[in-house]
């Protein structure tokens, strides 16, 4: 039992320590100019951990106060994650002006449809259990995950269809966030239907997921960028007729 407590403390503490290290490294690389919201999100996560850790250890803070702080933090964190998704979206599409209008319109409509879906789900399965605040947070988390998961899937599908290239760090941020959102959707759905005291295993799984996503971010954000190069053998030579027409056009000029 003691070792399980140690594991939980480790799963809660280690990712935030890594986040703090990542924050320092990204600030030193002036990453905040490109991804201000992502950096704010990492900074907020570190700050939230420090505040919650101090509150948990303090004897003057009641359980209710701690959970209110936790709920507020969850709302702010979810809002920042939406900001990060928008930041990823703008980074992917800014190099493709031909897609600007279509991409933005489709992204907006997808968000509206997903919001309606999340509201329907919240109405259909409002959550069960005695801990009113925690159940509310879980239902909120579930709704947020539906939206975030859907938006990220849309982003991957859309850019896959148009064969858009992503900078590796943008891809890493989206992948980490996508894995987190999809597992959060599954876990928050279960958690919203059971008693809060029975959720410790699910909490451990979510902390493990957060840790794994952070490692993905660290890998992609700190690894050197690989540029695609056009090799000389790359261009097609089989379309001789078009070659001929084009050369004739050039000669006539």
């Amino acid at each position: 039992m003691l070792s399980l407590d140690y594991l939980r403390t480790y799963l809660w503490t280690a990712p935030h320590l890594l986040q703090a290290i990542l924050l320092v490294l990204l600030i030193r690389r002036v990453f905040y100019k490109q991804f201000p919201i992502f950096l704010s999100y990492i900074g907020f996560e570190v700050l939230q951990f420090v505040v919650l850790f101090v509150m948990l250890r303090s004897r003057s803070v009641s359980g209710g106060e701690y959970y209110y702080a936790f709920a507020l933090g969850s709302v702010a964190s979810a809002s920042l994650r939406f900001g990060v998704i928008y930041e990823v979206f703008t980074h992917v599409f800014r190099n493709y002006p031909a897609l600007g209008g279509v991409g933005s319109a489709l992204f907006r409509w997808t968000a509206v449809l997903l919001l309606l879906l999340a509201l329907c789900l919240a109405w259909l399965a409002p959550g069960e259990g005695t801990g009113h605040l925690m159940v509310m947070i879980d239902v909120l988390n579930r709704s947020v995950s539906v939206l975030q998961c859907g938006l990220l899937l849309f982003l991957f599908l859309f850019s896959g269809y148009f064969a858009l290239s992503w900078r590796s760090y943008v891809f890493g941020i989206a992948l980490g966030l996508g894995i987190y959102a999809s597992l959060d959707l599954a876990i928050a759905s279960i958690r919203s239907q059971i008693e809060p005291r029975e959720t410790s295993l699910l909490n451990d799984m979510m902390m493990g997921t957060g840790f794994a996503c952070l490692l993905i971010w660290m890998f992609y954000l700190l690894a050197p960028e690989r540029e695609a190069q056009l090799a000389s053998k790359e261009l097609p030579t089989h379309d001789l007729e078009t070659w001929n027409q084009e050369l004739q056009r050039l000669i006539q000029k």
Partner: protein
Amino acid sequence: MTVTVILVLVGLLALAGLLVLAKGHVGSTANVENLTEQLRSVDVEAFRNLVDPGEEQFLRANLPGSEFRKIQRERMLAAIEYVSCAARNGAILTRVGDAARHSPEPSMAAAGEKLVDTAIRLRLYAFHAMATLYLGLVLPGVRISPVGIAESYEQMTRLVVLLGCFQHAPQGVAAAL
């Protein structure tokens, strides 16, 4: 409870989908060097003929109804094959153009930029054309005209040729232009 089970399954499926899409992305980045080997030739004139309203009008006027619907369905299937092939080439050339626009040679970078732009427009047209052609397949009597795709494909082919010229003799071609 049913909604919860569905949501858990959706979450796990979304995770699997994301991993598959991400794997595809990593694979596509790694194989830039072999991209053009996957290009397939498209006969633009044959495609124009297949979606020519005059040709369709002629067939409609000279064939019995059932015969016309059968032939029109086959023509639509062939046109779908052409469009999907052109769209696939468009996706490949988007990546080739992307690689070219990072070139230190300004003329080549500009040609790469134009190629990316045209290839993306082609994919947009192809998406629209596929929907129209499938509609024509389900309802052979409905008039269809997938505009823009043939022109866009030709423009894209021209840009690939120019990119090839820039690659082999950049100064000469830039001067000729």
